């Protein structure tokens, strides 16, 4: 293990890779600072550029981009009271009051230190839990794997922002799209509707670019104008910020662990972990009334948690091939393009690559720290760039990205079509991530389903006779039916005394 870590560090420190990491970090912080453009947008927009890179360089770029975008969101929360990413909403509660008190420099430095510590704890979690979880995957058969993938998809639909019913429908739509083309097991051509263009199936990369990036560009085109005119001034406070963060190390460590655990669970992610961390810290504080008025713990908690969530989200994706959210789904797309299979083999045959990924995540916090401490106020100026200048490059980068996937003009049309679809889905409260997750999980689910059916001589009983598969099925049923039943039961319990009262 240790020699591979050393080799991984050596690979990471190759000049080309260091340059990529720096470029990705700067781009990531800028995108994170721009409200509305989160890590999913950044990963989708730059995903195609990784296709022509070496596999290690591609993952280094994506890791640095992911971590730095989440970091950038916190800066906007403090300076503008507008969360840059969904993972920094809770940072506004105390970050902006601190900025109004003239402590923006202190807050940003403290957040940077918390981000570095939270990020390191998250990476440690990824290093130790992902290989262990991957070993578990070796013990489970195709029926269990199928049920686990179905459970993962359903969890994302239920837990993510939006309507669960619409999320499940989108998951189903994504699965249907993945069935188009040649069946991977029997080789039969299916659902091509007579079109030769559909014989190779619909690639998930142009779809992801469309629903995550082009859709966002349409939203920005609708909004127009600039993101911000009023910005708090940033001055000094570097040493005070470092001291304030280190004084509250317990808060940082505790919320990082919370963030890591939330990240590992499918479907929840940074949008929830920052809130949970904030609320837990507020609950545990001796003086909770100071939260919301500029308490430094109120910015340390969410920012430490969301950095740990970044690594946590990668655990099920790397270990099982089951993404916990849209960001990790995009990682799986990049891995698939480079022929990297997630699962137990990833840590055995691609141990060096994984070590490089760990180092990339780790080292990306060096430029993040430097940007956070010395460059945040300059970076924040990007919020003054008008959408009239931002929107065209986003769309054109998406077009070129879709084109670079397979040099096919059809992919451009698919990306644009799904961009329009993605816009409608976003505005009508559909959890868009479920569509892409369905497309990614489709081949995995179907191959395991078919293998399970072969093992059981075409009997569906295998899904209920295998204990672990049954457990997953029961959890799935509880998750799908439980809230409805509990809701009705709860209503009855509440209505009974009310009815008595009115009588």
């Amino acid at each position, binding site marked *: 293990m240790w020699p591979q870590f050393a080799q991984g560090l050596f690979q990471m420190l190759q000049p080309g890779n260091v340059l990529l990491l720096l470029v990705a970090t700067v781009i990531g912080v800028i995108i994170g600072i721009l409200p509305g453009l989160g890590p999913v947008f950044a990963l989708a927009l730059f995903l195609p550029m990784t296709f022509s890179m070496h596999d290690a360089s591609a993952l280094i770029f994506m890791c640095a981009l992911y971590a730095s975008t989440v970091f950038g969101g916190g800066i906007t929360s403090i300076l503008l009271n507008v969360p840059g990413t969904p993972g920094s909403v809770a940072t506004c509660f105390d970050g902006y009051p601190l900025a109004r008190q003239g402590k923006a420099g202190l807050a940003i430095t403290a957040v940077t230190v918390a981000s570095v510590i939270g990020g390191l704890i998250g990476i440690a979690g990824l290093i130790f839990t992902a290989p262990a979880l991957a070993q578990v995957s070796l013990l489970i058969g195709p029926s269990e794997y199928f049920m686990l993938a179905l459970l993962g998809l359903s969890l994302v639909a239920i837990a993510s922002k939006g*309507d669960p*019913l619409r999320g499940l429908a989108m998951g189903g739509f994504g699965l*249907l799209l993945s069935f188009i083309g040649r069946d991977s097991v029997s080789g039969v051509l299916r659902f091509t509707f007579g079109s030769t263009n559909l014989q190779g199936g619909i690639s998930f990369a142009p779809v992801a670019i469309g629903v995550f990036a082009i859709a966002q560009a349409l939203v920005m085109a609708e909004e*127009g104008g600039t993101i911000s005119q009023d910005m708090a001034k940033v001055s000094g406070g570097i040493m005070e910020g470092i001291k304030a963060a280190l004084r509250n190390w317990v808060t940082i460590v505790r919320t990082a662990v919370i963030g890591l655990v939330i990240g590992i669970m499918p479907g929840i992610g940074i949008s929830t972990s920052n809130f949970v961390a904030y609320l837990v810290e507020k609950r545990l504080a001796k003086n909770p009334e100071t939260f919301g008025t500029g308490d430094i713990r109120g910015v340390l908690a969410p920012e430490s948690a969301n950095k740990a969530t970044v690594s946590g989200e990668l655990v099920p994706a790397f270990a099982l091939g089951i993404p916990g959210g849209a960001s990790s789904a995009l990682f799986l797309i990049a891995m698939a393009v480079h022929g990297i299979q997630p699962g137990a083999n990833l840590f055995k045959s691609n141990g060096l690559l994984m070590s490089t990924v760990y180092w990339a995540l780790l080292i990306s916090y060096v430029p993040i720290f430097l940007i956070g401490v010395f460059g945040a106020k300059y970076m924040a100026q990007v919020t003054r760039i008008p959408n009239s200048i931002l929107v065209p490059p986003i769309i054109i980068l998406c077009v070129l990205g879709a*084109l670079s996937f397979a040099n096919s003009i059809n992919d451009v049309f698919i990306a644009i079509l799904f961009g329009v679809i993605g816009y409608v889905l976003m505005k009508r409260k559909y959890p868009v991530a479920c569509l892409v997750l369905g497309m990614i999980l489709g081949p995995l689910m179907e191959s395991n389903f078919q293998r399970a059916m072969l093992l059981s001589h075409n009997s569906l009983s295998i899904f209920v006779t295998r204990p672990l598969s049954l457990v997953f099925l029961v959890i799935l049923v509880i998750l799908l039916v439980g809230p409805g039943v509990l809701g009705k039961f709860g209503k009855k319990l509440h209505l009974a005394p009310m009815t008595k009262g009115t009588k």
Partner: protein
Amino acid sequence: MTTIEKARRFADRLFSFLVFLMAVAMFILSFSLPSQAALLPRWIALATAVLILAAQFKPVRNKENTEEEVQIPFFIGSLYLVAYCIVFYLFGFRIATAILTIVLSRKLGLKNWVLTLLLALVLSVGLAYIFGHMFSVRIPEGALLKIF
């Protein structure tokens, strides 16, 4: 309900209808496939058709009564993108990108013509050069321009 919200609702209904049609078609087509390749798609198609239908009866809580200030409504933005696809196919990446950049940035309020043209030049020629040479992407020349 505002016009923009009505348009979004119409687009949602149209999209849902198309997904429903696709699911039903895949459900029917699955019966002509060997059972191994048909079983899972058949169930997922059935489930998706039911779910997308059920979703139509659940209201979407949007701020429908508040008038949004809209720069380029999405249906216009979508039309621009469709037009871009057509010009892209006929005249290639560079011409289509230059036109789209000029139209979009002007519509979004960029008053400075020099900046607009510079942006169009960078995106259509600069990015095409970078992607063509650094990422080995074949930049489409356009079906019509190829003929001539």
